[in-house]
């Protein structure tokens, strides 16, 4: 992230305070870091799942407004609570279980490989990690680039959801079109489709949904990727998105073609 140009001013690891890593000072607590460096804009959390929740609360209670939670495996009820608290405090939580956020050529708060992303006008919002890189690469092959890429994470509970990120893209002058990368499980894609229909002003969307061949009732890697209780199957998502006028592609390599098509209708 430092190589990319992200201004990381401090690191926090209990017990390692006083050390310096890649020129960045390390503190034992977030409070010390904030006291020393002033209000920071964001925090990125790599803490293991058993302790990540505490780290999120520490960030929240020290006034940090954007928190990227890379960690996978955080207990469900912990996520429920801190995401709800973040909402009431007006804090944006990105993730959990996310590769992070990147605005090519500007800033990277995450673990994604930089070379795959190029500056452009396409916003990406995704539940996946490496699949997002795949999509970005396909875009790059056709000369398209990204304004900002947001991984909302693969867990059933996410901080920002598709709707909230899309709203941000609507406000973003750099973004002309949005790519939504979804998966089986939950109804986030359906809710997005519904929201999209209700808008009078909108930017075109192209979608890809992973998990067409996933069997019901089985968790496909991601905690949120499970078809259960009658919710979350591929066809329901595809139908909802298509009925809303959103192009849904069958495979990642079809995305650039769909983007060209969607831009024509702008």
């Amino acid at each position, binding site marked *: 992230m430092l190589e990319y140009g992200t201004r990381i001013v401090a690191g926090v690891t209990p017990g390692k305070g006083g050390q310096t890593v890649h020129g960045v000072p390390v503190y034992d607590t977030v409070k010390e870091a904030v006291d020393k460096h002033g209000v920071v804009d964001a925090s990125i959390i790599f803490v293991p*799942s*058993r302790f990540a929740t505490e780290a999120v609360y520490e960030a929240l209670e020290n006034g940090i407004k954007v928190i990227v939670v890379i960690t996978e*495996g*955080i*207990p*469900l*009820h912990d*996520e*429920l*609570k801190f*995401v*709800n*608290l973040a909402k009431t405090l007006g804090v944006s939580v990105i993730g959990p279980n996310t*590769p992070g956020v990147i605005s090519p050529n500007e800033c990277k708060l995450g*673990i*994604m*490989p930089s070379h795959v992303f190029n500056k452009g006008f396409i916003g990406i919002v*995704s*539940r*996946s*990690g*490496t*699949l*997002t*890189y*795949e999509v970005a*690469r396909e875009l790059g092959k056709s000369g398209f680039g990204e304004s900002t890429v947001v991984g909302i994470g*693969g867990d*059933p*509970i996410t901080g920002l*959801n598709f709707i909230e990120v899309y709203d941000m893209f609507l406000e973003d002058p750099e973004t002309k079109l949005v790519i939504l*990368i979804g*998966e*089986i499980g*939950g*109804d*986030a894609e359906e*809710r997005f489709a519904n929201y999209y229909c209700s808008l009078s002003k909108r930017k075109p969307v192209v979608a*890809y949904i*992973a*998990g*067409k*061949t*996933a*069997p019901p009732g*089985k*968790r*496909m*890697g*991601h*905690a*949120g*990727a499970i078809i259960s*209780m*009658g*919710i979350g199957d591929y066809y329901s998502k595809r139908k909802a998105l298509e009925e809303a006028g959103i192009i849904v592609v*069958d*495979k*990642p*390599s079809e995305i650039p073609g769909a983007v060209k098509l969607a831009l024509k209708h702008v």
Partner: protein
Amino acid sequence: MKLYEYEAKEIVSKYGIPVPKGRVASNPDEARSAALEIGLPVVIKSQVLVGGRGLAGGIRFASALEEVVREASELLSSEIKGEKVEKILVEEMIRVEREIYLSLTIDRYSRTPIYLISTLGGVDIEKLVKEHPDKLLKLNVNPFTGYKSFYSRVAARFLELPFESLNTLDLIMGAMYRVMLDYDAELVEFNPLALVKGGGLVALDAKLIIDDNSLWKHPGLVEKYSRELSFYEKKARELGFSYVELTGDVGIIANGAGLTMATMDTISLYGIKPANFLDVGGGASADKVYEAVKLLLEHPRVKALLINIFGGITRCDEIARGVVRALQTIGFSKPIVVRMLGTNEEEGRRILNEKGVQVFSELEDAIRSLKEMLEG
């Protein structure tokens, strides 16, 4: 992680939720003693984690001791939808006036626990959601303030329950919430919850699903986790990767759940059927990859392997080393096609090419090559 009905009932009854009198039995003799203790007639229920046991003949009735023994023996030596029946639950028969659906689960969108309530008890929730949404009441719970008694009054009105049932419903709904929090549950479901004469409510069936990410908090439950997994799923879990058994004949390995699903979906477009979902996760070591490849090479149904790696924190050379080690140990019995991109891809490619493994940059080129190999 799913709990068996008898385990779920043991837990909820401790919180005061009424369940039928019952005892677990692992052999026909125990079933017989249970029936004697409880009193005939009894219901005999297979304890399996698979759904739809009723329609599959997994629930029997008996009004005489010999019947109990006979039904119990039959069930205990059978399989319900591929799952062996190791235990049965022998319960008193309850005289039911009405069946209700009541569950507490998680609403992803609002990020809150949510009660689902319906007058159509005994109907699968999938059917309720899809076909009778008007008969389903949803009550969100604020996770900071928790369950409040007035929720049960709203539910009772919707269900048109008699006045005598109000207190019991309040007790049940409150207890469900505490169970959910204490056990880190994703789902607490009573389907059906029976209304009996006099206004009582009894949970005829109980389902409890624990959040997998919270199992470490419940030492007593952790050991039970692998029982719902198949042989290969169990092995995969021990080795540290996500694995789901499918029905096809081409093994899939990728890094990242979304990418793995996309790989499965894309090869299906080419008429190839995936044998499994296997996600080695981020930053996998050569050892981990070796185990994954070995697992699939030794899988009887797998005829060929497709490996799709897009390395971010995952290093392509590590992946390559793992693949090569597996091939050297098991042999080149099954064709392997690799698509590899990302961190250290040149080194990874070199290592694989040296051993005669084809490496592609484009997924669909890899799939086409695989298809040719399978058809050739």
